[in-house]
């Protein structure tokens, strides 16, 4: 593990009932890197991502952020789950953006962004309001601060969700298929916002089906299938000239989809 490694996943296994969804996953993400996880549905990508901020428990292996175990502490040879308050403190350092946005429907865009800083960080309201307004203008929504989620398009909601994650000033942001629930014409705005984040040096792990986005923005691409990583490496190499037959097959399917009704990243 090098000095600039931020996230390190080692030998992670997870069972859901009798289903062995993660079967020994290893990966590392350096500070400032963008890592894209691609793979067919049911390959365990989303589960892996949710393990990274302990929204899901793991059954074996370790996940470390900056050298500290996420969700567990080591006692002898065993990993014991941390208390909820400790897990919550760790999650403050890890932002997350969801496929279904998951904005709080009873709060305005501004309040959605403020709620973390004011209620978790106990930041003063005026200060939080100012910071939230600035974040919303950074994602291009300066004119929609007082809108409720249901008054916003999917793309706008997802950008509010990105601002909400940024408001906690995280070291890492996890994106769970952030554009999969969007109408094709709205995907571009969200991907542009994410690309800007990447350029600003944010460390990001992105589960996505957007091959073009991955090629363009990701430093590292990882292909998962049936709970294991089948191929990983520099995004250009993995996605441009896949070595593993399953990767080639999977990418072939995606490009077929792109040709029939895709959209620009």
């Amino acid at each position, binding site marked *: 593990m090098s000095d600039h490694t931020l996230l390190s996943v080692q030998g992670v296994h997870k069972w859901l009932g009798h289903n062995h969804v993660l079967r020994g996953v290893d990966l590392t993400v350096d500070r400032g890197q963008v890592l894209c996880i691609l793979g067919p549905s049911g390959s365990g990508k989303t589960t892996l991502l949710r393990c990274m*901020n302990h*929204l899901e428990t793991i059954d074996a292996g370790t996940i470390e952020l900056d050298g500290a175990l996420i969700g567990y502490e080591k006692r002898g040879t065993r990993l014991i789950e941390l208390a*909820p*308050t400790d*897990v*919550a*403190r760790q*999650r*403050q350092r*890890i*932002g*997350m953006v*969801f496929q*279904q946005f*998951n*904005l*709080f*429907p*009873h*709060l305005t865009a501004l*309040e959605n962004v*403020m*709620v*973390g800083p*004011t*209620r*978790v*960080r*106990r*930041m*003063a*309201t005026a200060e939080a309001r100012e910071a939230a307004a600035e974040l919303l203008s950074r994602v291009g929504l300066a004119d929609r601060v007082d809108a409720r989620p249901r008054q916003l398009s999917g793309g706008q909601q997802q950008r509010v*969700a990105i601002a*909400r*994650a940024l*408001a*906690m000033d995280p070291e890492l942001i996890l994106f769970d298929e952030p554009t999969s629930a969007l109408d094709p014409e709205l995907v571009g705005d969200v991907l542009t916002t994410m690309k800007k984040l990447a350029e600003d040096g944010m460390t990001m792990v992105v589960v996505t089906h957007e091959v073009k986005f991955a090629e363009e923005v990701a430093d590292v691409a990882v292909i998962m299938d049936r709970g294991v990583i089948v191929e990983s490496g520099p995004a250009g190499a993995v996605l441009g000239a896949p070595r593993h037959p399953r990767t080639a097959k999977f990418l072939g399917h995606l490009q077929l989809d792109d040709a029939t009704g895709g959209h620009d990243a």
Partner: protein
Amino acid sequence: MQAQPHNPEATIPHVVRAESVEEPGEPPRIRAYQRRAWLSRVLSTLVAVVAAASTVWILTNPNLRWSVVWDYLFSPTILAGLVATLELSIISMIIGIVLGVLFALAGRSRYLALRSIAGFYVWLFRGVPLLVQLLFWYNVGILIPGINFYLPFTDQSHYVSANAVISGFTAAILGLGLNEGAYMTEIVRAGIISVPRGQLDAALSIGFTPARAMRTMILPQTVRVIIPPTGNEFIGMVKSSALVAVIGGGDLLYKAQIIYGQNFEVIPLLLVVSIWYLVITSLATLGQGFIERRLAGDEARRTIRWSIARGIR
């Protein structure tokens, strides 16, 4: 949802304006009528006649003895019963709501023991008839005659006998409250289920603990779902509190029974009781409608905004 702009021409088809009919290219305006409009009128007339006849019959029937009804409607005994019924209903409802929230949360605990207790509670108190439960609480003194309280590090002890604590009224509150709690548990549970799972994920992901996420982000969102059935429960509670008469709970029906046990004016006193129940349930229905309009839409929002504004945890 946004209000439709009021357009009289669109909503009232039979307002025909000559110039719009003349408009070229526009289809002629055709008046539309309700199907079997005549039948509707006939039925309305029939119902009105029957209602009027019944009212006259009720008001003039000497066996109903309206003068007796009037004598007792505001008698101190009946009013005391009315107050007792209101107290029973309100206190038991509050107990029921508190228990409902607690057991609904326990039912979602990650500890199997708590989930089991919640399941057992609902199963037991929803499964045994309320009347039977009330009789049990009233006779709890047979089961547990009393409890000795020992003062620690001394020889002194204080004996509390169950019969001293469990009066008809306290037995009634225990019975009604615990029974109501079982139903409220299910209502609160339904409210929590109605909030998408992603809301909890989102709250956890920005650093809320599970308990605070539930309390400050999820439960406020359940209010709009929980209020209508809770109003129904309260109206049901007012009426089921009459069962308390069996264990001498001092409620409205019990007081009426005492009076007609002495003067045998059974029907007039039951009328008095019915009138008061209708008054309470009507007021409760109005109140429920008011709360729903007032709170259901924005309560969750107001709660959270209030606390954001003050930076309260």
